[in-house]
């Protein structure tokens, strides 16, 4: 699998306590484990099974993904921004790989 590439849409600044919207995408086949190849053999499952967003070390939002999630998993959710800091996004692959991305936000 090509190296999954995370992309994040998040404001650069917020006011203290503001609820912002975060959007994330990551390139991934999300092989469901329920398809067969042309010889009729099952194609093994390989999906991202967990996504986490944390702010300054505290969990904001988490998702457990099942094989029904589309390729290139998309998440849109909200977050409260109490102070300046950093959002950390983590995707965990079935094969144990972990993909990460970090975005700073400044409270004005």
């Amino acid at each position, binding site marked *: 699998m090509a190296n999954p590439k995370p992309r994040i849409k998040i404001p650069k600044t917020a006011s203290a306590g503001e609820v912002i919207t975060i959007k994330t995408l990551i390139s991934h086949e999300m092989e469901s484990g329920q398809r067969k190849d042309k010889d009729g053999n099952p194609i093994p499952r390989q999906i991202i099974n967990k996504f986490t967003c944390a702010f300054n070390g505290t969990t904001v939002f988490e998702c457990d993904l099942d094989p029904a*999630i589309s390729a290139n998993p998309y998440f*849109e959710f909200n*977050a409260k921004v109490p102070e300046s800091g950093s959002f950390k996004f983590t995707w965990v692959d079935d094969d144990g790989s972990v993909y990460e991305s970090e975005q700073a936000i400044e409270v004005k």
Partner: protein
Amino acid sequence: GMAVIGLPFDLALAAVEDTEKAIMDFTGGKKPETGKITLTAPEIAENGNTVPVSISVDSAMSGDDMVDSVIIFAEGNPNPQVATFRFSELSGSAEATTRMRLAKTQNVIAVAKMKDGSVFIDKKQVKVTIGGCGG
């Protein structure tokens, strides 16, 4: 004009009862009520491989009025479970959107579990169509 749709599932589809059982597993046997949670999805999928689904729970997301988690099911898929969202005080509001695969026309179901243990449900039929021709 017609389209032939290619879907990511070749295997047999699950029964609706599997979803019922999974809901009970999630709620700890409690029957969920309607209200509080809203599931938004298109009436007809543009592409069964990527169907947007949003959930929103009416909650202050502070103090006692907190959403713990929301689970989404597609009751006509081979495995009905789609995703489980967990929220926190830093979520600000209990809203989330993702995209799912639907093997055929079916009900999509969302169940919310509140911190106080109460459970709420919403569902919507999403049609997966061959494609029609218009006016």
